[in-house]
């Protein structure tokens, strides 16, 4: 052993000790850890010792960024309010990093993200952005691939107990290249919602059976949903002196109208292809994905039937015609002027019998006295959404909103690093279960299957049962077929709006929508720097594509035979 090497070896334990001492939590941080663990993060799948170790790690890893103020932004749902108001403060107490977590309207988040991506203006240090953007983030060079960063620059500031395999939404945040671009921080689904107490009322059951010839229950298809909507709106009309309605939706002409249609209506109608096998690489897949866009070997090739897409297909037209007709016939008249946010608050009034799909992020709005029974449990339930006549087994069964921490290259590196620490904190096992109890948007398998949440599942009307089942894989966010979400999304509400207002037919609206989407895909391919760029196919007669296997599906004249199931049997469908 040479002397220089021996000296180095002698010094090693001393250096290690110095490093360990420096890394030791300070008395004030120990107090802060104790305070947050005993007063706030009481429910966790980790033991208290494991939680302490996790929080100590944050304290130590954050040392180079102490006293930094960073800005992050997310949409306005209860989960993000909890992050902004409670978790940002906890993170400050534990790390000294001051996080300004702004909560604003979804369209404002998207606009700011778009501005930062296009103009390289570092407005925020991180965004909580829906994974509906995964087709964008993984095609454009502006977004950091988190999985690559974790193996390189962020390796030393990546939480050893982050446990990515525990996240239930990771596949939705994974791009066309297999890299992770967004770290899920909340998930909620669009599920069928109904008044279980009314559906269980023997008198109402009897009236329904007498009128329709089959039992009142969880509708399995749109035909049954429509019958139930008609039953409550036009036959029952009042319950306990209150006017009641058999259907709820919203139709105000603004961006949230677009989400309503693009999120679920088309997929529930059965406009798209059967979901591809998860194991198949994206580059090998072809078929019609979300928004009726046909993709071949990762390239979007068309949205209209004439190019093999399904946005103006018979199934898509049937979806939007059903949406408008039911909004007019069965929903409260004011629903036509409500939006994403205001319609959810409306449901809390307690005069709606069912909603074809309901955003479970608004669960806290429905834990009101009016909608809770004497035991404090909901009078309502969530169940699998009924499907339209084109729907087939293996197709997308509904929409799931997954939001993930997203980092852009234009953010200064040290600020992005500090934001990465905050992002990991708000999804860590120490806080994730408590966060669920404040927003009901689960992200971790360990929480979903925990004894504590399972024991309390009655309080959430079927939400936990959905997330404990395999069904959550078939409720998917907007997928990789949408090459640039921000550039395409406004086309939805701009074209659907005139049809809702009765100014033009649904067929015309959908033809125009498909045409606009294709024009924009063409423009994107010419002007933008992106991989797997759109390459529009040549147009062919629609009859060609409608006679090919798969979507776009040909016109189906025969209506569905209405079918319902008792609640427990309907839940079993999730398990199967």
């Amino acid at each position, binding site marked *: 052993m040479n002397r220089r090497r021996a000296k180095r070896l002698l010094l090693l334990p001393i250096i290690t000790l110095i490093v360990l001492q420096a890394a030791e939590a300070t008395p004030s941080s120990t107090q802060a850890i104790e305070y947050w663990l005993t007063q706030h993060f009481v429910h966790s799948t980790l033991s208290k010792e494991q939680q302490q170790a996790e929080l100590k790690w944050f304290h130590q890893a954050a040392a180079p960024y102490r006293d930094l103020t960073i800005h992050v932004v997310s949409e306005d749902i209860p989960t993000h309010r909890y992050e902004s108001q409670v978790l*940002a403060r906890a993170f400050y107490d534990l790390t000294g990093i001051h996080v300004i*977590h702004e909560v604003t309207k979804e369209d404002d988040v998207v606009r700011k993200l778009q501005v930062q991506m296009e103009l390289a203006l570092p407005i925020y240090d991180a965004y909580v952005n829906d994974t509906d953007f995964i087709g964008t983030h993984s095609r454009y060079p502006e977004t950091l691939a988190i999985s690559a960063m974790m193996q390189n620059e962020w390796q030393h500031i990546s939480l050893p107990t982050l446990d990515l395999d525990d996240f239930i939404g990771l596949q939705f945040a994974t791009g066309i290249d297999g890299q992770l671009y967004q770290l899920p921080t909340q998930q909620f689904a669009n599920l069928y919602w109904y008044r279980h107490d009314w559906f269980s009322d023997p008198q109402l059951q009897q009236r329904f059976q007498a009128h329709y010839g089959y039992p009142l229950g969880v509708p399995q298809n749109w035909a049954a949903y429509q019958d139930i909507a008609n039953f409550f709106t036009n036959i029952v009309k009042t319950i306990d002196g209150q006017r009641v309605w058999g259907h709820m939706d919203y139709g105000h002409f603004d*961006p949230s109208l677009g989400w309503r249609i693009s999120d679920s209506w088309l997929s529930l109608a059965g406009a798209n292809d059967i979901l591809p096998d998860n194991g198949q690489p994206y580059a090998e897949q072809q078929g019609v994905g979300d928004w009726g866009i046909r993709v071949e070997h990762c390239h979007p090739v068309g949205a209209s039937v004439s190019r093999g897409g399904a946005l103006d297909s018979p199934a898509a037209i049937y979806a939007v015609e059903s949406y408008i007709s039911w909004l007019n016939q069965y929903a409260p008249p004011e629903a036509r002027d409500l939006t994403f946010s205001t319609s959810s608050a409306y449901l809390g009034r307690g005069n709606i019998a069912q909603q074809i799909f309901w955003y479970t992020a608004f669960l806290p709005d429905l834990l009101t006295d009016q909608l809770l029974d004497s035991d404090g449990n909901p009078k309502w339930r969530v169940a699998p959404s009924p499907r339209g006549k084109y729907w087939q087994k293996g197709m997308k069964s509904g929409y799931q909103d997954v939001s993930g921490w997203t980092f852009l290259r234009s953010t200064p590196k040290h600020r992005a690093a500090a934001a990465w620490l905050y992002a990991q904190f708000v999804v860590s096992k120490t806080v994730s279960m408590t966060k669920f109890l404040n927003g009901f948007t689960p992200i971790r398998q360990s929480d979903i299957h925990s004894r504590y949440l399972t024991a309390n599942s009655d309080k959430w009307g079927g939400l936990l049962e959905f997330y404990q089942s395999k069904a959550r894989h078939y409720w998917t966010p907007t997928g990789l077929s949408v090459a640039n979400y921000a550039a395409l999304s406004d086309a939805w509400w701009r074209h659907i709006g005139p049809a809702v207002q009765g100014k033009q037919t649904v067929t015309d609206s959908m033809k125009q929508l498909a045409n606009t989407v294709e024009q924009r895909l063409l423009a994107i391919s010419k002007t933008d720097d992106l991989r797997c760029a759109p390459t529009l196919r040549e147009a062919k007669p629609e009859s060609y594509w409608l006679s090919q296997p798969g979507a776009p599906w040909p016109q189906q004249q025969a209506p569905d035979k209405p079918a319902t199931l008792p609640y427990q049997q309907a839940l079993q469908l999730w398990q199967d």
Partner: protein
Amino acid sequence: MARLVPLILCLLLVTPASATIKLLVYDYPPLVQINRQAKPTGHAIDLVTPLFLQAGVQYQFVKLPLKRAIQQAAQHKNTCTFPVFRTQRREADFRWIGPISVNRFGLYSLAENNHQLVTLNDAKAHKIGVYAGSAVANYLTDNGFSTYETSSIAQGLQMLKHGRIEFWVADIQSIQQASSLVGEQQLTPSLSFYTSMSFMACNLSSDAQDLDALEAQLKTMYLTGQAQQLLHLSF
């Protein structure tokens, strides 16, 4: 006499090719400041003026109150107004060019008060003053704050000086100017909490070529850093 001052404050002819776009502006310091007999000034004016010149689009400034400006821009061809905050309800009514400002708002107090705020919620127990009708005022209302809305920045700052409010909401760009209004007492930033972007809202029937040219030119101005400089952006 002042009432007779023409509404049209400035007319610049650049090229004879396209229609003149009426730019309806209202007092919204520091983005737009209306000076009765001269052309309007302010950070957004500093950006918009070279934007139109460089895009080769003719324009004229017209002073109007906010509500009328928005109404007229929605109704009349080749008319735009700024600064306007995009909301879901307004989105369908205009073609939007921007951002023509990005502002970060904070809670400011007199240095002697030494308030420590970590999250916006910490300020709920305090009296807050904010400029009436601003986007940040709406943001605070949406977040459950009850604020004192003032008709001018000077009024709010006087309330702060005399202890009638504990925090004044201002954006970073305007705070230096505001400090001078409270005299020798220093304003201290207690918490920056909201970022807003404003846009130019243009009539949907306006000449699309002109608006495309403006949009493209604005992008160039941002990518070269010129826009950030004119808007005094610190990020």
